[in-house]
């Protein structure tokens, strides 16, 4: 007979909410995982046969984690896919036949080199590869083939602005049936290289500008050097060129969550800024020695936003329903002539429209309103596009004629929390709508790419290649 054992002590009140699959943070092996609710938060707990137990905070609000289910929109199939189901998620990327969503936003990482050396870089930038223009053109063609008429392509890196052929790549994207072209940049070259910037600005890409706060302390901790003055200069240049900017702030607990509120107020007043995106620092690339129980999650950032300013409250934010609803929350505000900032979620009861569980039986939901709203509440949404206008106009119970210039008056605030090796969840990865285009034609969901091992695989493959007779070289940082 087996000996009896003492039971494992568990935190009081802990609930096993669901089981899913994840990876071992040490060896990346796919393992079973539990999602537990306790202390007001959702946690992931899992065991690797070789490396033991791991636990990490997934979502800093247990009630919201459960209630977000009603925002889970049915997925939409892409036009084409690239792989077969063989080993199961997340090993068949991608995307494979089991993936539950098409891709709203695709990234092309054009290089691995960077002119910064940030302690928090999830891309683990450094020596590696530079894509060629023909390679990028092939990826863009592939994106169009996979999606039909894709919404957004974003050039990223490394640091894409130091790639010598970035402007050619932007032009190539703009020549194809892709609605928006974005560049994700740290802004250094924008601030420091006026000759290059004139040519860049003439192409009028949308700008995702890394902008973590309004103090040099924050930049020293997150980026390794004081960058505030450079960032402000970049923003000034972008405003002069009338380019649309989304400020992207990496948020780390104990470093800059107190800057969330002031950053929004700053963005609201700045002529170039159309929105602020908060991204809790992801510990999947560089710097993995962190406390996974204390990471910032979407609700933590929302609370920091509420306590840091008078404009937005936690209740103004609604999950994005096209991806897994716990991945991202967003709100939009209307900007009046006199500096009024009015959250549209408060005005329009957006959450009622986006309640997919209730709406299946609810008569009278206007499909046009819902369609426009889904356009606005998608991961590929770009502030200033026509969706907001269409939505409010179609929303007949608020027939306000002057809202027809809504596109230029809408300001976005979004929080997007990426999965890391502690929180990776195939349930969420299977509905990801952000993909990374690969040189071999695959499109790999963003968080899967960064956690499971695809990034390392791609980097090794691209660093080893010799294609088109072009030698691989690592660029020196721009002046």
């Amino acid at each position, binding site marked *: 007979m087996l000996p009896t054992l003492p039971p494992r002590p568990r935190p009081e009140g802990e609930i096993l909410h669901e089981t899913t699959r994840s990876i071992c943070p040490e060896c990346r092996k796919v393992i079973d995982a539990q999602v537990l609710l306790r202390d007001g938060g959702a946690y992931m707990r899992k065991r690797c046969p070789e490396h033991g137990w791991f636990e990490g905070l997934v979502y800093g609000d247990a009630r919201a984690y459960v209630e977000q289910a009603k925002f889970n929109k049915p997925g939409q199939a892409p036009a084409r896919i690239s792989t077969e189901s063989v080993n199961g998620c997340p090993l068949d990327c991608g995307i494979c036949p089991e993936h539950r969503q098409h891709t709203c936003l695709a990234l092309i990482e054009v290089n691995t080199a960077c002119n910064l050396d940030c302690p928090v870089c999830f891309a683990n930038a450094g020596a590696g590869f530079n894509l060629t223009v023909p390679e990028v053109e092939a990826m863009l063609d592939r994106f169009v083939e996979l999606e039909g008429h894709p919404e957004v392509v974003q050039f990223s890196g490394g640091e894409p602005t130091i790639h010598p052929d970035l402007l050619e790549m932007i032009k190539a994207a703009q020549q194809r049936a892709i609605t928006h072209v974005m560049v994700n940049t740290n802004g250094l070259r924008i601030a420091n290289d006026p000759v290059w910037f004139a040519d860049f600005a003439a192409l009028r890409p949308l700008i995702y500008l890394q902008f973590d706060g309004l103090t040099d302390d924050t930049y020293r901790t997150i980026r390794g050097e004081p960058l505030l003055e450079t960032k402000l200069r970049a923003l000034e240049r972008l405003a002069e060129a009338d380019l649309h900017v989304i400020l992207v702030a990496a948020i780390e607990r104990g470093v800059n969550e107190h800057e969330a509120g002031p950053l929004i107020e700053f963005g609201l007043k700045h002529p170039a800024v159309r929105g602020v995106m908060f991204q809790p620092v992801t510990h999947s690339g560089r710097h993995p020695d962190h406390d996974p129980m204390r990471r910032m999650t979407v609700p933590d950032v929302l609370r920091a936003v509420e306590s840091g300013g008078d404009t937005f409250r936690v*209740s103004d934010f609604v999950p994005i329903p096209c991806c897994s609803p716990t991945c991202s929350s967003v709100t939009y505000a*209307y900007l*009046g*002539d*006199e500096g*009024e900032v*009015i*959250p549209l979620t*408060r*005005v329009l*009861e957006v959450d*009622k429209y986006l309640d997919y569980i*209730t709406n299946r*039986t*609810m*008569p*009278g939901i206007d499909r046009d309103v819902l369609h426009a709203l889904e356009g606005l509440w998608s991961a590929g949404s770009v502030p200033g596009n026509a969706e907001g206008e269409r939505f409010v106009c179609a929303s007949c*119970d*608020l027939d*306000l*004629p*002057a*809202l027809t210039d809504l596109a230029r008056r809408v300001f976005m605030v979004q929080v997007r929390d990426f999965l890391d090796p502690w929180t990776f969840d195939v349930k969420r990865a299977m509905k990801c709508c952000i993909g990374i285009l690969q040189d071999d034609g695959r499109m790999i969901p963003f968080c899967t790419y960064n956690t499971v091992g695809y990034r390392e695989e791609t980097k090794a493959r691209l660093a080893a290649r010799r294609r088109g007779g072009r030698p691989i070289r690592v660029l020196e940082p721009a002046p």
Partner: protein
Amino acid sequence: MTEPMAAGPGTTPGLAIVEGIPASVTACCSTLYGSPLAELLVGESFHPGGLESTRQLLAASGLRPGSRLLDAGCGLGASARVAAAEFGLEVDAVDASAGVVSRAAARDAGGVCWATADLLALPFGDATFDAVLAECVLSTLPRGAGLAELRRVTRRGGRLVVSDVEADGAAVDALAGHPVLGAALCVTDAWRDGELEERLGAAGFVLERRWDRSASIIDLVDRVEARIRLAVAVANGSSLDLAGLAAAAGIGDLGAGGVDGVRRLADQVRDAVRGGDLRYFAAVARAAA
């Protein structure tokens, strides 16, 4: 039994009576909530908590598809339509204002019988309904007579499904005196602490369940405040005639002091809710023998 809350023409300052509304109904709600301004600012479902609250209440009342429901004081009919379409109930919906009823009926895709009616003299026989829904309505009626009439049309063992405003304390006295808020929030004639149980018992109902929904007042105030700010922000140079809408709603102005005034009023209401002086409740009661 006395009727301390009885209201008649002219009892609420600044509010005109719309033609065709029985004098037994408090004028404020029918005038204000029958106006296009109300829908602009609040939406189609007027009570705090909106349709989510209605759904929860209908689910809690245990009605089977095919049961007969009266929506007493249906407004623009959002709740009645949900009761018919989502719960499969046979719904009669009545409101004191003929204008409101015709707007409600125009939105109906079928399944609801609409009628204009005096809520103190309902055009239905005794024990007609399995349940009566009265959202933010009882406080606008003379207490005893209103409940007695609802009890009359409910079959024995049937349900009264109710939600309403409850208020007392100094903060509320200040709100009640305000020409817009007093009416819009039904504060003037709100229930007092403990009054519901007493009145239900006297009318032949037994309280089964009761929920506190006070937080939904704050959500509603947030929304109205945001909509007023948005309407004011876009009204300049547009064809939106806010003053005209306000006049048609019988409130003269959106509130003295413009947007700042609106914000102050909204703060006052939120403070009253947080301080416990202004409450919203939902309840299900059984029609006793």
